[in-house]
């Protein structure tokens, strides 16, 4: 049995000639609809118990509407949602606090709104107070709180009792770094205890580090449903999508999905990683000189060409990235058919593990406006540590050790 089961959900907002006609529709009359906007189109997916799913999509893709339907505050036009377990939704933290009441009184009120009874709240209020860490402010009216303090208190209330299903909206990106850390730790804790998580975020790092699956919504439809890293690659490509741009996804030999996107005005002829002898390689030793060679071909006359790359770790988090614009060498005035070879030389100061490189050609300092070609997983390689002392982590930052006693 899955925790969330969304079946063939459609949501349309209807407009009638007047609101009185809408009211007639409650009585079985079918008045003429003057306009209809379809927000969600035939959405189907299910989330298993204990899964952590990231919900990704551009503004207007229908994420909030979908969340409202799953939470149960909004009804779908057609289709059904089945939920197994108690849902806690962190949609807008701190909303609904009464500014004139104290933190404690507000806790009773908000927790009551979540359906907790008075004795239940009394049982957890000590914990809430401790988690929020707002000290003596707890007994003061909320109007004297800073916005950070309100968020802390709201998060503490919303997560006071472990829910079977937790829905987290971008709300969490507020608050200071310390509390963000603390709240993510709590979410992880819930997850280990079996809570199903639905996380809406644009933040690559949080989706990849928490979720084991991601769903990409685009124009009200499920565009992709799969491993977070690959879904985020497609999302990244969609952000830059323009009408004449193609996005293609193909399988690599190791079964991962490679996303290519771009307008095609320039294309990546080859992307090769070479060792210090200049041989093509996919195995690199820690700290050795390495070079990345990107060959670009102009398919039309191009005024400006920037080549860039990003080294990503196994989870898809960016370890390092730069481009020729930032390095002060963007090219201008390319003719049709011209080929350019960019060689980036760097020492492989990376930790042991598997990495991938995404390469891109674009016309500006970033790929948003003029994206000629973007290729994720252009190269994959492993870093091995054969001749240095053992260390952990993604970066090789070797110290010189001095011990005095």
């Amino acid at each position, binding site marked *: 049995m899955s925790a969330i089961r969304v079946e063939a959900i459609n949501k349309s*907002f209807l407009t009638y000639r007047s*609101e*009185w006609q*809408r*009211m007639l529709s*409650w*009585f079985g009359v079918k008045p003429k609809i003057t306009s209809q906007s379809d927000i969600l189109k035939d959405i189907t997916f299910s989330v298993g118990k204990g899964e952590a799913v990231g919900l990704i999509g551009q503004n207007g893709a229908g994420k909030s509407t979908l969340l*409202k339907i799953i*939470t*149960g*505050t*909004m*009804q779908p036009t057609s289709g059904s949602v089945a939920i197994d377990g108690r*849902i806690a*939704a962190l*949609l*807008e933290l701190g*909303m*609904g606090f*009464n500014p*004139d*009441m104290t933190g404690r*009184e507000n806790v*009773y*009120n908000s927790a*009551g*709104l*979540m*359906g*907790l*009874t*008075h004795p239940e*709240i009394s049982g957890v209020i000590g914990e809430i107070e401790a988690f929020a860490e707002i000290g003596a402010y707890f007994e003061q*009216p909320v109007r004297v709180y800073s916005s950070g303090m309100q968020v802390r208190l709201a998060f503490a209330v919303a997560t006071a009792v472990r829910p079977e299903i937790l829905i987290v909206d971008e709300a969490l990106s507020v608050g200071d770094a310390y509390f963000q850390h603390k709240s993510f730790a709590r979410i992880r804790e819930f997850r280990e205890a079996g809570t199903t998580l639905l996380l809406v975020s644009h933040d690559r790092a949080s989706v990849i580090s928490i979720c084991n699956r991601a769903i990409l919504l685009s124009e009200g439809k499920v565009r992709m449903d799969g491993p977070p890293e690959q879904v985020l690659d497609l999302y990244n490509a969609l952000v830059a999508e323009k009408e004449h741009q193609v996005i293609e996804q193909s399988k690599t030999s190791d079964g991962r999905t490679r996303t290519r996107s771009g307008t095609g005005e320039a294309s990546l002829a080859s992307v090769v990683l070479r060792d210090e002898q200049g041989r093509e390689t996919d195995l690199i030793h820690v700290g050795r000189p390495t070079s990345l060679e990107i060959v670009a071909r102009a398919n039309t006359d191009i005024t400006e060409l920037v080549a860039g790359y990003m080294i990503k770790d196994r989870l898809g988090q960016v370890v390092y990235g730069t481009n020729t614009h930032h390095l002060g060498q963007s090219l201008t005035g390319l003719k049709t058919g011209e080929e350019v070879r960019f060689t980036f030389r760097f020492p492989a100061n990376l930790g042991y593990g598997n990495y991938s490189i995404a390469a891109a050609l674009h016309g500006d300092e970033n790929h948003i406006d003029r994206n000629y070609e973007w290729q994720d997983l252009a190269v994959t390689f492993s870093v091995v540590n054969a001749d240095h002392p053992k260390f952990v982590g993604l970066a090789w930052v070797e110290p010189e050790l001095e011990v005095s006693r």
Partner: protein
Amino acid sequence: MQGLLRSLWDYRFFILSSIKNDFHSRFVRSKLGGFWVILQPLSQVLIYAFILSNLLSSRIQGVEGPYGYAIYLMAGLLAWNLFTEVLDRCMKVFVSNANTMKKVKFPRIALPIIAIGSSIVNNVVLFVLINVIFLALGHAVTPLIGFYFLLVPIVAILAAGTGIALGVINVFVRDIEQVVPIIIQVLFWFTPIVYPANVVPEAYTKILSLSPIYVLVESYHAIFVFGTVPNLAPLAAVTALGLALCGLALFLFRRASADMVDVL
């Protein structure tokens, strides 16, 4: 229906604490605190008493003393205030809680229940105070005032049925909350609150007495001013009307609940 009651029961703590907070928050930031709950209706009484008592006091039969008119006014306003407060709050409750309804899943019917609950609490405070004033003015307070606790639910049911039905429509057509105060004002002057029923020509009394509020206000007059048992048959009819309106309101509320969040 059963599910509705069940969810209200599950949310009983929330409803009670909201009523408490509502009452409490009225005076946490004001110097005079709880006085404001009663000062407002009291000022109304003073104004009418000051302006109209000379004109009308001789017309109120069955009450002796110089304060007869003031006593008559207070009794009527006690009923009227409860009616309008419940009606007004139920009418606005969905619009003013739009954000909560969009973001949190909870039984929405709790919202008007809280509104009704806090209006009743305010009214009971006023009731106690009015009795104290009556005693101070030397007006006999009879055990008949116990009928007040029968009349309160009848007033509340009538006002809530009307208010919730209008409140649902108000979500879609916001003109409602502009029109209703005008109608309320008209109704106020068509109800014998500041004037005794007997100043109205016989022919019009018949029409006026068809108004359910007329029945309720006259019942208040009976128990507080004249010390008589209210006329029970019309009261039963008003109760039936109130229940029917509540039924209609509930029906509208259920039919509209899917559309409501879309529009808010």
